[in-house]
């Protein structure tokens, strides 16, 4: 906990010299909490670009995060009247539900307050964070029957590509923040290959590029947040 407190203080101090970050005002109004994405596949960040067009990795607190997925939170107290800053550390008010180690992670669905406090235990601020279970992996770009047909590339250095998007969703198709750990794999790379792109779907899920290598059939396996979705792929002429 102490190591983390020092790290947060250092991060806050570093952030103080690097311009404003987008956060959410704490309930007591003494500072701002920022949600920090620890991977690029976190929907909380990959839909947010800053003034310079770069993806922000510090954003406002999301409506809900996914149970079991990792994220980070920073707090920056408002400037004091003398221009100074108060150093703070973050604590979970229910460590059995929201654990704070090197990252933050919910062990089960619920709502937990994160408090920012000084070294002497004075509580500067608080904010509530909700967590939901990931229920489904939705795959975009499939035919109505849930399968996928892609064209065989002609060879000679020419590849036809097909893009598939995937996103992990909560109940009622709610988008959930957190490092989902998306992966995609082909069951037979002699039929088709798959690789990640640097782009995201409209909902913020990662997109994958499929290349048909030879006529035939194989499976595309998509995984995230402990869920798996298998898509049957046919490579056609």
């Amino acid at each position: 906990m102490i190591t983390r407190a020092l790290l947060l203080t250092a991060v806050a101090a570093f952030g103080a010299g690097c311009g404003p970050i987008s956060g959410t005002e704490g309930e007591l109004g003494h500072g701002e909490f920022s949600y920090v994405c620890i991977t690029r596949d976190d929907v909380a960040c990959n839909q947010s670009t800053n003034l310079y067009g770069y993806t922000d990795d510090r954003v406002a607190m999301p409506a809900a995060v996914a149970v079991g997925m990792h994220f980070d939170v920073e707090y920056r107290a408002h400037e004091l009247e003398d221009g100074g800053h108060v150093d703070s550390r973050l604590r979970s008010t229910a460590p059995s539900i929201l654990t704070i180690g090197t990252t933050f992670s919910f062990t089960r669905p619920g709502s937990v307050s994160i408090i920012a406090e000084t070294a002497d235990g004075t509580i500067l601020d608080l904010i509530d964070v909700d967590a939901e279970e990931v229920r489904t992996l939705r795959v975009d770009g499939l035919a109505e029957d849930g399968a996928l047909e892609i064209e065989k590339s002609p060879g000679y250095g020419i590849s036809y590509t097909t893009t598939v998007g995937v996103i992990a969703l909560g109940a009622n198709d709610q988008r959930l923040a957190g490092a989902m750990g998306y992966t995609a794999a082909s069951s037979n790379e002699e039929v088709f290959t798959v690789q990640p792109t640097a782009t995201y779907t409209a909902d913020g899920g990662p997109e994958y590029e499929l290349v048909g290598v030879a006529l035939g059939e194989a499976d595309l396996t998509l995984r995230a947040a402990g869920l798996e979705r298998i898509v049957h792929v046919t490579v056609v002429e």
Partner: protein
Amino acid sequence: MKMTSNGAWALALVLAASGCGGFSHLDFVMESTPPEATLISFERMQLVEGRAVAFVARPMSGDTEMGDDTEVSLASGNPDVAEIGPSLERWTFVLFGTTGGETSLTVLIDGELEATIPVSVEVQP
């Protein structure tokens, strides 16, 4: 000189009205939005596990707020069930239940133990 019963009441009323009387209770003013199941009062408190509540605990003498220099300290009887800590503003505290159970808050006014408030913490479903 022996004070009559009526005289004592009159003096108490005058002292209470002037804010110079003894502590009677805490008046709570919420500073954050608590979940529905939360109850904060001088008689008892009910919290939801993991949800913090911020409030101002105004020391009262009857209907009158006590002087600005009145020191209010609140302490949890079992920090494994509920924790409380001061915030920046005068008489402002943040209370939260860390796990389901029962405990109490002790109320110290100017260092004197004045009351004990029972606290129950509901487990999140």
